[in-house]
């Protein structure tokens, strides 16, 4: 490569610049693009390679639809609650008049907690809200509240949602705190000079500006929960049939009895997370108009 740039330059240069990203392009093609394409193409193929829509149609059977539906419900619930709680905590620290020193540790902890997913997270929640978890036992023996009698089970919809919140809330805090910082003091002052109450300022100025950030983060949290495999498997084994668990079992042992239906299942996951991320990117571009 070096010889191309040292010494007299030839009159017509070959476009050698491109060689510099060749290793990267090769890696990404081989280990990201091609594997994904293989799945996407496979979703539209019969085992002997001809085009078909049967696999996609095969997704619309009650058991697979139910798996998608519960996955989507868990993702929406944990994204909504994560957004709400993350926003409340972040707003409390930015505007709530709490001591300044709380902010640094909160953001550091959020960085750690948003990365503390997977198998260990499931263990932590089993030890807390499981049948003999510290909180379940405390509520039962001290307050007489039996979580299980109330219908709560860590291996269920709500159990998974509460567990996912452990990485959803911190992610929301990490993304929304800079956005809240971006709300200029002048806007609030201008609003109050014009006679706006605190509520009016939030409803008519701050909230519309923040809305794209909030909705965008909501989409990101949704995708984040939808693709989570390890936490779900470690928590529920295979007792809760959500899409990632179903796909995991399919890859391991073809439980659906049709390899190409597995491709379609994976393709469906890409579509769902892809749409969620497209919404995120689009809304983030919008929110950057105001929050620089």
């Amino acid at each position: 490569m070096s010889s191309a740039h040292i010494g007299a330059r030839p009159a017509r240069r070959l476009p050698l610049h491109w060689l510099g990203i060749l290793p990267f392009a090769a890696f990404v093609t081989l280990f990201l693009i091609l594997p994904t394409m293989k799945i996407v193409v496979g979703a539209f193929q019969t085992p002997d390679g001809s085009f078909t829509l049967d696999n996609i149609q095969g997704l619309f059977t009650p058991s697979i639809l139910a798996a998608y539906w519960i996955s989507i419900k868990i993702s929406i619930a944990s994204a909504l609650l994560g957004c709400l709680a993350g926003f409340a905590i972040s707003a409390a620290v930015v505007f709530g008049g709490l001591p300044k020193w709380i902010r640094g540790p909160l953001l550091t902890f959020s960085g750690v907690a948003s990365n503390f997913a997977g198998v260990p997270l499931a263990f932590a929640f089993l030890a807390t809200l499981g049948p003999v978890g510290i909180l379940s036992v405390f509520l039962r023996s001290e307050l007489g509240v039996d979580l299980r009698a109330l219908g709560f089970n860590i291996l269920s919809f709500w159990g998974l949602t509460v567990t996912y919140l452990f990485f959803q809330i911190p992610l929301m805090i990490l993304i929304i705190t800079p956005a809240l910082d971006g709300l200029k003091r002048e806007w609030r002052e201008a609003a109050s000079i014009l006679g706006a109450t605190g509520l009016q300022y939030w409803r008519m100025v701050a909230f519309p500006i923040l809305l794209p950030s909030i909705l965008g983060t909501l989409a990101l949290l949704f995708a984040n929960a939808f693709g989570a495999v390890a936490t779900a498997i470690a928590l529920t084994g295979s007792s809760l049939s959500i899409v990632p668990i179903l796909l995991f079992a399919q890859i391991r042992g073809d439980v659906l009895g049709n390899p190409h239906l597995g491709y379609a299942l994976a393709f469906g996951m890409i579509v769902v997370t892809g749409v969620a991320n497209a919404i995120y990117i689009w809304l983030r571009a919008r929110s950057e108009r105001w929050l620089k």
Partner: protein
Amino acid sequence: MKKIWAWGALLFGILYFTLPLVGMTNFSLKMRRGEYSFDAYAKVFGDPRFQETFTYSVTQALFTIVFGVLLVVPTAYWIRLKLPGLRPYVEFVTLLPLVIPAIVIVFGYIRLYNTSSWLPLTGSALGTNILLMFGYATLALPYMYRAVDTGLRTIDVATLTEAAQSLGAGWTTILARIILPNVLVAVLSGAFLTFAIVIGEFTMAALLNRPAFGPYMQLLGANRAYEPAALAVIAFGITWGCLGLIQLVSRFQKSAPPKA
């Protein structure tokens, strides 16, 4: 009034986040009946499977980091220097692993690189290890690339390159002795994050059947009561350590005197 709300929200957050941590720590210490002990930890550390899988994952993490740095630093540098027009596209590609779930990527690997394909990586243990390492590098790509690219933004790549070239340096020298030291903090941040991701990763290792730490934890969780809690405490400690080291190195950079 506002303050009460703020304290309420914060208190809720503190409760929600400390309870599971307290829960797992408490549980991990209760193996011996009626008293607190470190028995669960002793059991875990004494388990040869723990030592094997942990060593395996640490080795994988180190190889992933080396490979990731060798792949990302020259690429990000080259794009900033020569092909700035490509930046948005490359950035988009590096973010794809956040969009495509890991389980889908590894599914593609299994179909694409099986024993009857043109590149039968899954045919041998070494091949599968390499494939898993590439998979980890893919998962870490968004973090690594963004860290390095942010690091490169703070230095004047073009001037440094020209200065080095006029002193007779070749590309390898420029990258290893000019660029890398200048973005070392960014590279280290990416490296620690990569380590934290690889060490506990479950999906890829499980589906490629490699004896990694993540699948070991899952297996233990399905069969034991107290050891999983001890593992969770250890894993949390590792994550905390990695993120703490990132804070430490970035603080180190801030306090370092500006380079001449």
